[in-house]
């Protein structure tokens, strides 16, 4: 006796089956399964402290980006607004408290770099 099992399939299921057959026939399925396994392994091996440290690094980079982007935009605006200062004019810029705070920061930055060299 010939037993034949028939399964009702939707057109969408048939489409997925066709695509899967193509992946199997071309041998790509092996790589894809390996890739899924790698993704799954990575999720399994990742811990909360690891995520926290990674996010902290991203946050530091974002903070540097925020400060730099703002400072460059501000500097461009001020430079465009004012004529090129004389030597004395440059010194006068340093009368501004925020300029002095920024300069002190730059000098401390060089110290921070120096400490790591």
């Amino acid at each position, binding site marked *: 006796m010939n037993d034949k099992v028939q399964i009702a399939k939707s057109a969408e299921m048939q489409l997925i089956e066709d695509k899967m057959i193509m992946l199997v026939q071309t041998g790509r399925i092996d790589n894809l399964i390996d890739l899924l396994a790698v993704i799954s392994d990575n999720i399994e091996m990742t811990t909360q402290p690891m995520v926290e440290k990674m996010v902290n690094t991203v946050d530091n980079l*974002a903070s540097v980006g925020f400060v730099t982007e703002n400072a460059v935009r501000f500097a461009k605006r001020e430079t465009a607004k004012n004529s090129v200062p004389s030597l004395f004019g440059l010194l006068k810029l340093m009368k501004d408290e925020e300029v002095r705070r920024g300069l002190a920061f730059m000098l401390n930055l060089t110290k921070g770099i120096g400490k790591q060299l």
Partner: protein
Amino acid sequence: MKKKILIVGGGTAGTMTANNLAKKLMPEIEREEVELVMISDSKNHYYRPGAMYVAFQKAAGHEFVRDQRSLLMPEIDFFVDPAVEINTKANYVKGKSGKLYNYDFLVLATGCEVAAERIPGLVEGGDWFYSYEGAKKIAEKFAKIKNGRVLVTVNFPKTPNIPHQCGIAPVETTMMLHDYLTERGVRENIEIIYTYPTKAQAVENGLFLQSPTSKVLPSVFDSINVKHRTGFTLTKVDPAKKIAYSEEGEEIPFDILMSTPPFKAAKVIRDSGLSKAMDDEGWLPTDKKTLKVIGLKNVYTLGDTVDLPVSKAGGTIHNQTDVVADNIAAELRYGYPTESYDGKVIAVAQMGLSCGMPLWYDYEEDVQPTPCSKLGSFMRLGFNKGLYWAAARGML
């Protein structure tokens, strides 16, 4: 003449909106046609949901506090000067210093605060995780408890159809508590009872403020041996006997009462006469689409201060802030607002210490609960510890 936009409040809503306004109005700022000013009652910025992690010893608290100035673009003038008076007829806000801050457009983003004193005995007998001080206090109790009962209660505003702060927080913390006590090895000696009031916005006799989630919660709580009971609206606490009483006439003894207390808007809002909310709660009447204060042409509001039915949470603000910023920019440019808020809220709920459930809903569709996952928890952790600050700065 230079137009002045004043933002009152340096929390999530104020900070995101100030930075988004600076970005959107940069051409006008460059031409010196627009000025942005923010006033706040603190030099610090607090990420409020962080307190939840402090309650379970998963953070010390300082990770969630930053200098407010460091989160603002330099185009925004920032003053620490608590607002004490709002005059919408003369278009100014008065600071505690006595200084008057005039405005052409005003953004009220003063949030809400715990009002535990509104339930007799709750201040003395109860605990909550909605503030850092409260979270530190309850953390000590959770670290010491060896046996007994933790009772979870939830209070809603008296004004109809308005949620308490962060709607999902009572569920999150109940599940975090289960995990934390399990980690400590004392869970089997401690009974957790989660209660919910008879009326929770549109839901009656449920366990959550939206029906689909309310329906799945019993099986979720059963699976972790958390007892649950609806129809318990906390009305009084006896701190000496450690008994919680409900409006419905029930009483439940407890060892620790983890409450979601009543909330109220900031004092300056409650004193302003702008609110029509019940019981001097202070929620601002807000146009659900434009996010303008109803009846005022040049005043916007967002976040925890509004009287909308959506969650008072960061995931709401993140979707409201661009509507407010776009509308103010459009009013300056064309004379009328162009954007509309659809009630969208996007968040990742912390369903236990290491499981996260992404969720979204809007005015039309409730949250469809899905199983939580480890990846979801990483997304939430990533937001708490890093991405939040980028979002506050208007970077995402």
